[in-house]
């Protein structure tokens, strides 16, 4: 039955070559931990992707309970953490995952840097990777405000004040980020939108480009 459905689609869209290319591609010896234990350094990128998937999933589920509004935000987080079954775990996954994704990405960046894997012909992929790093930090910064607890608001205040010191565009950047004079209701909705729509969209696009380039160029050779 499944085979028939697959054949029907394949006849019309020729999907076999697409995934066979991914499935059958040759993985070289030097990245294989079965041959060289030191090859574990090549895992960091994959693990970053794995946590990113977990972050997207847990974020989607958290949004079922979260209310981005200064009256209800804290109450809803408190409720989902303390009243809803497994709430403490799902929020924990998102909270600790946010830190782990930074750690893993940092290690992945260091691996690529010290191996000189960013050199010709992989310059573009390195640039995309650094942009992903920036987007991740942006996700961390905007996500920190969402529970609307003490540290959230005050850390955001500091962050926005830092942005304000930039010459010329500083004050505009401040008003744009906080959506007004104070860190309040409009800041929260704005950060929420940036955190769940704008940055994830940018992240997915960049990650797509990252993976296509890896597939196209293959992994860098042994040192």
């Amino acid at each position, binding site marked *: 039955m499944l085979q028939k459905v697959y054949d029907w689609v394949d006849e019309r869209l*020729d999907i076999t070559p697409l995934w066979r290319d991914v499935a*059958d591609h040759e993985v070289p010896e030097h990245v294989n931990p079965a041959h060289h234990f030191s090859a574990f350094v090549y895992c960091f990128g994959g*693990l970053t992707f*794995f946590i990113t998937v977990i972050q997207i999933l847990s974020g989607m589920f958290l949004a079922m309970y979260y209310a981005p509004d200064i009256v209800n935000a*804290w109450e809803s987080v408190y409720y989902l953490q303390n009243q809803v079954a497994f709430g403490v775990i799902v929020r*924990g996954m998102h909270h600790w995952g946010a830190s782990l994704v930074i750690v893993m990405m940092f290690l992945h960046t260091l691996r690529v840097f010290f191996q000189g894997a960013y050199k010709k012909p992989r310059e573009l992929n390195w640039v995309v990777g650094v942009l992903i790093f920036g987007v991740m930090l942006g996700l961390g*910064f905007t996500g920190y405000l969402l529970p609307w607890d*003490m540290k959230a608001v005050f850390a955001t205040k500091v962050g926005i004040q830092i942005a304000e010191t930039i010459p010329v565009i500083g004050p505009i950047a401040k008003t744009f980020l906080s959506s007004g004079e104070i860190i309040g209701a409009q800041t929260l909705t704005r950060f929420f939108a940036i955190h769940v729509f704008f940055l994830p969209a940018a992240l997915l696009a960049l990650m797509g480009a990252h993976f296509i380039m890896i597939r196209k160029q293959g992994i860098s050779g042994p*040192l």
Partner: protein
Amino acid sequence: MHRGKGMKFVGDSRVPAERKPNVPKDYSEYPGKTEAFWPNFLLKEWMVGAVFLIGYLILTVSHESPLERKADPTDAGYIPLPDWYFLFLYQLLKYKYAAGDYVLIGTIVIPGLAFGALLLAPWLDRSPERRPSRRPVATGLMLLALISITYLTWESVVTHDWNKAAQQGKIITSKVDKKDPGYEIFKGQSCIGCHGSELSGGSGPSLIGTGLKPEEIMKIARKGRGAMPANAFKGNDADLKKLATFISKQKK
């Protein structure tokens, strides 16, 4: 693959009618110690992922994600702290040449140079050499950056008063009666700035469960104590009496 003249397509589409058989490459086609991505290599990756996931789940189960009390933007006594991966930037701004008149160095110049250099690394380090030891400048600069980040983060962690911060952020369950006339006076005077809107303290100590009599509190409000200046209370004695009674009523 057959191309060009005589090529047959599926209907009016561009998909060739001749289908590629869905058979995996034979293992003999992988030379040396290379192997197929699916399933051989992916299995190894996923095994690492599974072990990682177990550790990760243990972390989430054993460490509840922190939630401080609901934000009170008027609480000026709170010591702010960003998430740990921004700590080094935050610490950088505490130094003389990265703050005050030089704040641009701390906020724009140094982070901008670091991020710009990272972004443009392929064009700054153009030699075809890949071994870290053969490109000492790049390696050295990265190590220097790593050491600085570690040092700054470390400094930030040891100088932060974690106990006080935990105290300030605690979720308070005992609610202060905000309809009490004493609270109105508490709010109207400057008390709230240091002792917090929940009387739980800020830059000043907590006023809940002080164990002091109203008379003693009146004296402190007039004459000060410790870091609290004299004449912090400005107003008549009747109001002061109400305030002091209100504060001495607050039990833990």
